[in-house]
């Protein structure tokens, strides 16, 4: 079922991509979600399980490490919660499925510092709520899933009413759309009686028209991504509840016989709520399934004992789970399975590809993980100094293009994650990069609005001291590095780098991928558009004209320092024309040109004032 869902999502990734608010070529929510799901599915294929609890755990781990893009991170959190709720279960019943969906929603909401309505979160929440209600009406899991899917779809259609930016642009939320496709895949698979996912998937409409509700306008990425980039500085994940470290799961076997009293579910929940959260109580009659994160595991057991015999007890310290994830990431970095131990199977891991493009439109998922990709050596050219050589600081930057990578290294970056065309490394890439540094504190520069959440998630997973800075472009990341000082404190450096990011003027020039209208400016597909920080300020047919228009907006005094990073599509004649024009128009400006080598963006600019 999961594989069918992943496949359904993967097939329509491009459609989801088209829902991005900005008409830029690297709008890729669909790709991100599909790649995230693919990583989970690959993990599942690598470690097949008969029991739903085990399978969900495997899936959740794959998703967590494979998460890329903000919507991908949220997806991974939905399934993380789901897996907790079904832990220890052999089969998925309707009530359990419903409870698990709800737990997933709770987990995902908790993981986002400022949840925004009208996004994937809303779609997931409404679907789960409906699922809980529907669970009392049907025991047919296929029928039930179809209900959930329909509710998700309905909610998606209402997202433009909840989030103004969507209405402006005339799209539904892209992350929400991705989730709907996923649920659709689940439902179709179940309705088809659990037949082979490819056969089922083959019947899916290949190109249903994505829902649009009006003329297009401003904003960037999915609604979640827009909101995140706006609140970038404050947004953050709190994936582990430090307040309630003990993750408890067990069953209460209810006494048999006619004299049995009904289980007092509400009162029991209240008892758990005193010192816990993430509470799931599923009363199946003979068995009550209990899940809680608690501060006082003894109290929980005492509260449960009067209601029956306790079985299949599991009490985990969630801090240990963190450490395990860390250790696994470290194992993979060194070459999996070198350390003995029950928790460290040498099982193949899902690939976490650098290039999120090139999805098979109809061919289905790869049969298994490709071991060659496991450690991702192409992307992680990190030295691995001994632990006793801890430097005070390490810096990780996400970048794209060989020239930009060189520039970052020359600015003192220890690990450059060379992302694909659309700048979306998965959580695992980031975890590995951070873990590879023998440094007491690590600064992580995501350099793309859509990498921020994955960076936050990775920072938490490593358990290291990491500051994720809100840099949303490569030029901004470079500006931040100029403010870095090795001999300053963590706090002082963070403040300086944040201030530099705020102050830097970052310009990006790319080709519009569809017709739209932004702030009264008509943009035609194929035109060059200039983006200043987060706003489209220029649209011209010629790349030089667009560059001039963008730079005119960036230079006020005329004596600024201008850095030009040329992309792989930049024509040297055009670059020369731009530099010549700058020299004539702004003779006092200090201009430097570097071959950045980024795809999709012929030019990136950074302008610094005095």
């Amino acid at each position, binding site marked *: 079922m999961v594989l069918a869902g992943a496949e359904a999502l993967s097939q329509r990734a491009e459609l989801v991509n088209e829902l991005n608010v900005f008409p830029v070529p690297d709008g890729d929510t669909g790709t991100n979600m599909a790649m995230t799901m693919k990583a989970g599915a690959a993990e599942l294929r690598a470690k097949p399980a008969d029991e739903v609890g085990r399978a969900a755990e495997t899936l959740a781990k794959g998703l967590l490490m494979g998460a890329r893009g903000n919507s991908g991170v949220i997806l991974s959190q939905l399934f993380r919660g789901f897996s907790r709720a079904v832990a220890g279960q052999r089969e998925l019943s309707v009530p359990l499925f419903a409870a698990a969906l709800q737990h997933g929603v709770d987990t995902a909401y908790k993981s986002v510092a400022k949840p925004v309505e009208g996004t994937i979160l809303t779609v997931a929440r409404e679907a789960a709520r409906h699922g809980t209600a529907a669970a009392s009406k049907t025991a047919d899991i296929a029928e039930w899933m179809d209900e959930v899917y329909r509710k998700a779809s309905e909610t998606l259609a209402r997202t433009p009413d909840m989030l103004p930016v969507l209405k402006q642009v005339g799209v539904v939320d892209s992350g929400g759309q991705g989730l709907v496709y996923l649920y659709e895949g689940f439902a179709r698979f179940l309705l088809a009686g659990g037949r082979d996912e490819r056969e089922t998937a083959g019947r899916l409409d290949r190109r249903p028209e994505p829902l649009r509700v009006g003329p297009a306008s401003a904003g960037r990425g999915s609604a979640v991504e827009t909101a995140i980039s706006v609140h970038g500085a404050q947004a953050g994940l709190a994936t582990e509840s430090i307040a309630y470290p003990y993750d408890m799961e067990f069953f209460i076997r209810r006494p048999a016989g006619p004299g049995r009293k009904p289980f007092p579910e509400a009162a029991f929940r209240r008892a758990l709520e005193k010192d816990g959260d993430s509470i799931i109580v599923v009363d199946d009659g003979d068995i009550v399934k209990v899940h809680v994160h608690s501060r006082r595991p003894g109290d929980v057991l005492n509260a449960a004992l009067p209601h029956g015999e306790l079985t299949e007890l599991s009490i985990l310290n969630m801090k240990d789970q963190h450490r395990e994830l860390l250790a696994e990431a470290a194992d993979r970095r060194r070459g999996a399975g070198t350390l003995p131990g029950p928790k460290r199977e040498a099982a193949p891991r899902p690939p976490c590809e650098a290039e999120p493009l090139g999805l098979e439109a109809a061919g289905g998922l790869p049969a298994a993980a490709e071991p060659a990709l496991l450690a991702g050596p192409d992307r992680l050219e990190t030295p691995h100094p001994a632990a006793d050589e801890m430097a005070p600081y390490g810096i990780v930057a996400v970048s794209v293009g060989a020239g930009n990578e*060189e*520039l970052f290294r*020359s*600015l*003192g970056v220890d690990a450059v994650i060379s992302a694909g065309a659309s700048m979306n490394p998965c959580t695992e890439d980031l975890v590995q990069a951070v873990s590879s540094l023998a440094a007491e504190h690590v600064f992580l520069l995501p350099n793309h609005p859509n990498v921020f959440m994955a960076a936050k998630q990775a920072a938490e997973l490593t358990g290291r001291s990491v500051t994720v800075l809100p840099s949303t472009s490569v030029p901004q990341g*470079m500006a931040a590095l*100029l403010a870095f*000082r*090795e*001999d300053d404190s963590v706090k002082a450096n963070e403040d300086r780098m944040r201030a530099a990011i705020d102050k830097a003027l970052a310009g990006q020039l790319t080709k519009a991928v569809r017709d739209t209208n932004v702030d009264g400016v008509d943009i035609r597909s194929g035109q060059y558009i200039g983006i200043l920080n987060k706003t489209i300020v220029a649209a011209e047919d010629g790349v030089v004209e667009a560059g001039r228009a963008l730079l005119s907006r960036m230079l006020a005094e005329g*004596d600024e*320092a201008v*850095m030009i990073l040329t992309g792989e599509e930049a024509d040297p004649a055009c670059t020369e024309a731009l530099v010549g024009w700058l020299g004539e128009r702004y003779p*006092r400006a*200090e201009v*430097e040109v*570097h071959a950045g080598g980024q795809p999709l963006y012929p030019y990136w600019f950074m302008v*610094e004032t*005095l």
Partner: protein
Amino acid sequence: MRPIALVTDSTADIPTDVREALGIEMVPLGVHFGEEAYLDNVDLTPEQFYAKLASFDGLPKTSQPSPAQYCEVYKRLTDEGKDVISLHLSSAFSGTYQSALTGKSMLEDEREDAVTVLDSKTASYGYGMLAVAAAELARRGGSREEILERIAKLKAETKLYFLVDTLDYLHKGGRIGKAAALFGSLLNIKPILTIDAEGYVTATDKVRGQKRAFARIVELLQTAFPNGEVDLAAVVTPGRTEMAEELIGLLRDKFAVRKFTRSAIGPVIGTHAGPGTVGIFMTPAGLM
């Protein structure tokens, strides 16, 4: 009380006319372009040096004066009945100070007591100006103690910032100190350098482009001297007078400066900092 004579080495970058007028003794370092050997500031002027540097493949070598050179100067001055204060380039950059110490130890005991050798822990006109101030005080009849105290106080209160075109020269010469982390940057970064209390080169800040660098230096000096009253602003460059004048113009806008001086960075410092170097030494009012 015996009169005081000042001795420096040639890296103090004191203009020749000033030095001769004040009777400051200068012991030259050696500069070698391959087989060709020159004496710094004696048979090789800064202008000649930078012309040669531009056409020379590789870096010239520099050599510290021998202890015997110092010993000879100290002997001559003490023969004249003078006490000696000998002020030298930071020992973090050069063995010049050590060589002077050795030269002093080669004197007989009573003469040795007459010679004080100091590690300035700074470079160029940063200690040139200390020697000038000391010589002026000596002329007015200041005692050895008074002069040493003046030197220490001036040194402590003077702010120094300098820019280099490229860190290549400092790096190749091994004089990059704590600014090493900045070496190798592909961007046009202007590190704002200073010399710390131990006499090592260290980076205070880094900005892109020379205009921003000058602006930042002015800001840093304004923070250091909030009332804007300055006795001396000494700008040093290897003959890049337009750069010196640009910086002086910026300083004039923000500070009440009693005296501006301009001096040429000599061949030895030029070799290790590079031809695009510009430095500013600033002393607050009330010390001179």
